[in-house]
């Protein structure tokens, strides 16, 4: 499902002394099946933007079209239908776990979709497996006796169980150790590749963004600064730093190496790509 954001603006507390324009005229399209990364410093409008995509916030002006349909012209019950297609995983989603068992917690979403018992069970098993947990091991456990990384995966499974076509994740790896980070990102990559899911990933890790996404949306002060491929975006080091961002460490390295090796490529964002380029240019 393509998601078209049309001239979207959002003003918080309009008309009050606390009036604050969080989004200014955002106009972009997220293509069906694409993997988009959103970066921007705290307060740049990332979270406000993604909360419009499934109708949690209503725009001050402009709109969002999902699969060609204006989601804000819809009646309330249709909006709820739409939310099932657009799964939003908030920051620290494990804070939203509440059920007695992992099974019940993951089943909560599909249950609200009014699915049959069989269908619910099948989806719960499937989505727990999808996030890399063993269903039989965890199904009867309280979500609160799991480790932080496992709790987060259960929370993501709860969203996946609704079988969304668009998956939005707000900093899914914050606070996880390197292996936990790696595992969650690998699952997300799998969902995108194998299940053709459209994925929107908000992250402060330029390294993760650099190696995963096809397109980067850079936000600053509620506006779009860039919406382009990693190659184009991560070579704009000065602009990114000016708005409180950065590029992956290896990209800084390549830029410095260029002083001695002018032929070396700068559009490198992963250790693997840096290795290949260094072997090619420096070792020869």
């Amino acid at each position: 499902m393509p998601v078209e954001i049309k001239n979207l603006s959002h003003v918080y507390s309009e008309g009050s002394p606390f009036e604050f324009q969080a989004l200014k005229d955002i106009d972009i399209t997220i293509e069906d099946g694409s993997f988009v990364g959103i970066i921007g410093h705290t307060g740049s409008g990332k979270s406000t933007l993604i909360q419009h995509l499934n109708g949690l916030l209503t725009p001050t002006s402009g709109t969002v079209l999902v699969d060609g349909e204006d989601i804000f012209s819809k009646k309330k019950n249709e909006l709820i239908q739409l939310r099932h297609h657009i799964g939003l995983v908030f920051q620290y989603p494990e804070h939203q776990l509440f059920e007695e068992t992992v099974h019940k917690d993951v089943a909560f979403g599909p249950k609200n979709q009014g699915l049959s018992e069989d269908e619910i069970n099948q989806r719960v098993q499937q989505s727990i497996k999808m996030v890399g947990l063993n269903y039989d091991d965890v199904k009867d456990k309280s979500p609160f006796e799991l480790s932080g990384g496992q709790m987060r995966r259960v929370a993501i499974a709860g969203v996946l169980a609704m079988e969304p076509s668009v998956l939005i994740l707000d900093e899914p790896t914050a606070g996880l150790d390197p292996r936990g980070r790696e595992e969650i990102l690998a699952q997300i990559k799998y969902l995108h590749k194998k299940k053709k899911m459209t994925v929107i990933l908000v992250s402060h890790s330029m390294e993760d963004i650099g190696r995963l996404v096809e397109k980067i949306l850079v936000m600053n002060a509620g506006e779009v600064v860039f919406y382009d491929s990693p190659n184009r975006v991560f070579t704009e080091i000065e602009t990114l730093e000016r708005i409180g961002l950065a590029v992956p460490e290896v990209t800084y390295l390549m830029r410095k190496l260029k002083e001695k090796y002018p032929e070396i490529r700068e559009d490198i964002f992963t250790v693997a790509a840096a290795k290949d380029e260094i072997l090619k240019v420096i070792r020869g």
Partner: protein
Amino acid sequence: MTMEKKEKMIEVKDVCFVYPGNSENKSVTALSDINLHINKGEFVGIIGHNGSGKSTLSKLLNAIIFPTAGDVIINGLNPKDHEHLWDIRQTAGMVFQNPDNQLVATIVEEDVAFGPENLGVPSLEIRERVDRALATVDMQAYAHQKPHQLSGGQKQRIAIAGILAMEPECIIFDEPTAMLDPSGRREVMETIRKLNQEKNMTIIHITHYMSEIINADRIIVLDAGKIVMEGTPVEIFKNVSALKKIGLDVPQMTELAYELRKEGMNIKDSILSIDEMVDALCQ
């Protein structure tokens, strides 16, 4: 400098910590056989995967919890003597992951004053301490602002100022950058380095970001409640495959050096930073 460094800030002797069980849950041994010391003025990084015991250890170091067995001595004081408890908590301050959970007041300078007020510091001195603390974290200009209007990095620096106003000798940082954007992370790391280098404060920095501790004096690696490695950043990060095996990582430059060495390039295994890598490749 070296004289000072020999004085012990924290000693941990044969410490075990067990979270007690109840009718529903089994007891969990979070730490076993922990022996370590941290010298005054030292910058120590602690790494380990989620559940390895890092946070339990950090809570023992400022007497939020007490060891099941063994002793933790903080600046010569043992928290088992309950009369020392407040002295200890004042000696070792703590900064946590989420700045929003640590700020209590509606105005920045009132927030920073909260700690010393509770210690019963005279009000004139509180004023001085607050100004000094805000200057140290470079946030004087925001003294009259509301904390919720600040960025993540700024909030975290206010949380640090709140700890500084209690004049601790040691600060324990438990993943202080986990929620911050790149500039916030940079601000907080610069503040921590400044506290260590200019104010000679003892720093214990728990993190999942390996690049944040490449300048530490020493790194301690925890796995399954035990110390499995201890040494300088170069000594620790050399062990790329051993670290990966226990779910950890190495700085990006160290990993790149490791990969290039595997391809037969002659690059030393002690590279941690971009500049060191540039030097190695541009000889």
